[in-house]
């Protein structure tokens, strides 16, 4: 177990170093969420806030920007793995006595760390533009951890596709899953204004609870129920994606 964690740590550091050396690849991951954040708040923030009885639509949208950033940034683990496979470096890693799971967990953890950094960045920008943070500095920490945990879980989708197909295009498909998940959640408007069918779908969508948990931290302060909901949803998603990763890993190394 200790071996698994220390091997994972070394592989995570390697993946982070790779990111640090290819900063251009991060430009899109930073730019896109900020672009939509600014446009959404700027274009409809005023009317939407009034229409949905939301006092601070900037704060209301902050979690959406965070999720969007994570969905974009957490394709890197899968993409990097495809590159490793194509270069034959993955074989070299497989030939070490390292636990197989460490080989993928290292990259997933690196995505977790990157999404924590992006979450923090978005929160800081949000604060500058008046989103506020009702739960205070400790809330920022919880929000960042939530972002990292979601990032790690979410990157499992791209990783499973990468291992299964060995194709870079497939590894990027993880991003597509994000759109239905986010539009079937109260990302842009509160659930109360939804049509009944949409409300039902939103209720079974884990992203709903993650958005809600993040949003409560920003907008209304500490709400244990909502936090538990968010972390439970992330854990559920994580268990699901890690199962996919393990199955894909087995099919590759058999």
């Amino acid at each position: 177990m200790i071996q698994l964690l220390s091997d994972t740590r070394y592989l995570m550091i390697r993946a982070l170093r790779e990111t640090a050396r290819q900063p251009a690849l991060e430009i899109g991951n930073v730019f896109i969420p900020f672009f939509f954040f600014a446009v959404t708040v700027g274009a409809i923030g005023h009317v939407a806030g009034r229409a949905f009885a939301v006092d601070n639509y900037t704060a209301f949208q902050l979690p959406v920007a965070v999720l969007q950033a994570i969905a974009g940034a957490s394709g890197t683990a899968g993409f990097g793995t495809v590159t490793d496979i194509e270069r034959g470096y993955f074989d070299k890693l497989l030939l070490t006595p390292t636990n197989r799971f460490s080989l993928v967990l290292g990259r997933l953890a690196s995505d977790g760390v990157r999404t924590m950094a992006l979450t923090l960045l978005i929160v800081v920008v949000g604060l500058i533009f008046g989103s506020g943070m009702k739960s205070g500095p400790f809330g920022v920490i919880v929000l960042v951890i939530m972002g990292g945990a979601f990032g790690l879980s979410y990157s499992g989708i791209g990783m499973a596709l990468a291992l299964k197909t060995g194709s870079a295009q497939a590894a990027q498909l993880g991003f597509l899953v994000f759109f239905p998940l986010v539009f079937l959640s109260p990302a842009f408007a509160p659930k109360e204004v939804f049509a009944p069918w949409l409300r039902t779908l939103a209720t079974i969508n884990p992203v709903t609870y993650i958005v809600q948990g993040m949003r409560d931290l920003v907008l209304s302060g500490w709400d244990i129920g909502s936090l538990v909901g968010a972390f439970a949803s992330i854990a559920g998603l994580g268990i699901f994606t890690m199962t996919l990763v393990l199955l894909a890993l087995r099919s590759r190394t058999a």
Partner: protein
Amino acid sequence: MPAIAAEALAKHFTPEIRAVDGISLSIDEGTIFGFLGANGSGKTTTVRMLTTLMRPTGGHAEVLGFDVVRSPGEVRKRIGVALQEAGLDDIQTGREMLTLQSRLNHLRAADIPDRVNHLLHVVDLDDSADRRVKTYSGGMRRRLDLAAALVHRPKVVFLDEPTTGLDPISRDAIWRYVADLNKNDGVTFFLTTQYLEEADRLAGDVAIMDAGRIVAQGSPSDLKASIGTDVVSLQIEGGADELARAEQAVRRLGGIEDVRIIDDAVIVYVREGSSAIAKLVLLLDEASLRAREVTLKRPTLDDVFLQKTGHHLEAEESASRPPAKPDRGAES
């Protein structure tokens, strides 16, 4: 206990594609084993099975007594592997890559910097150690790959075509590392190659692969001796017709072991080759045929390869061939 043992080892990708079709091997510890074969003969597939990267579809294999399918972890701890396509990480530096490799092989953290420095020195990469691998030349990549295979002092090392595409200097360097490690540390090497000279020089034993099967196995000198004759090559002027007539003509000479047509030459396996040459040329002359070039040599591994598989090893032409045995040749 042999270092590597295989019995009826097979990999059939499909019922038709029998990449490896039941091979048996027993390789002693402390030896260098040369695994010779042309493109597509099944060398890499064999290496991938023996190193736990690929599951056999038939037979068994053990490395240092551990079954490659049942105890892959135990095998991996004890082997070093440099695959045909040097699998490197372009974005790390050479030093970083070797350090990570050492950590994943669970070396003691305190020993790693020294070990990495030592290996960088051994493969002459001290000066480039802190450059990204992306900037390395083909020869440097091979050497780094070899170093990566050695971090944990494996007792058995698999090298899949370690010198293909390298210039003679880089090739000599790799040969030197292999020979030194084998001599000083008793490391067993399983070395695949398309270069007969490489096998001849390094390997105590060789196996010749052809279409997934081992067609000959033994020490290079035994294999050469097994031909038992000299080899006279007659390059005939003209086309297929003349070649066929030439073959008929030379068969009239007594004491011939075998005659084959390879490319534009008639190859005659005969005892006392030097005294046979004049008679062979005379026989050609009687049939109104001319030989453009006549050579006589002791059998080489190439001749063994030719005799067992019916074709040359293509890559041999481009290999560096320092003066091997002097040809006792004669121009006609």
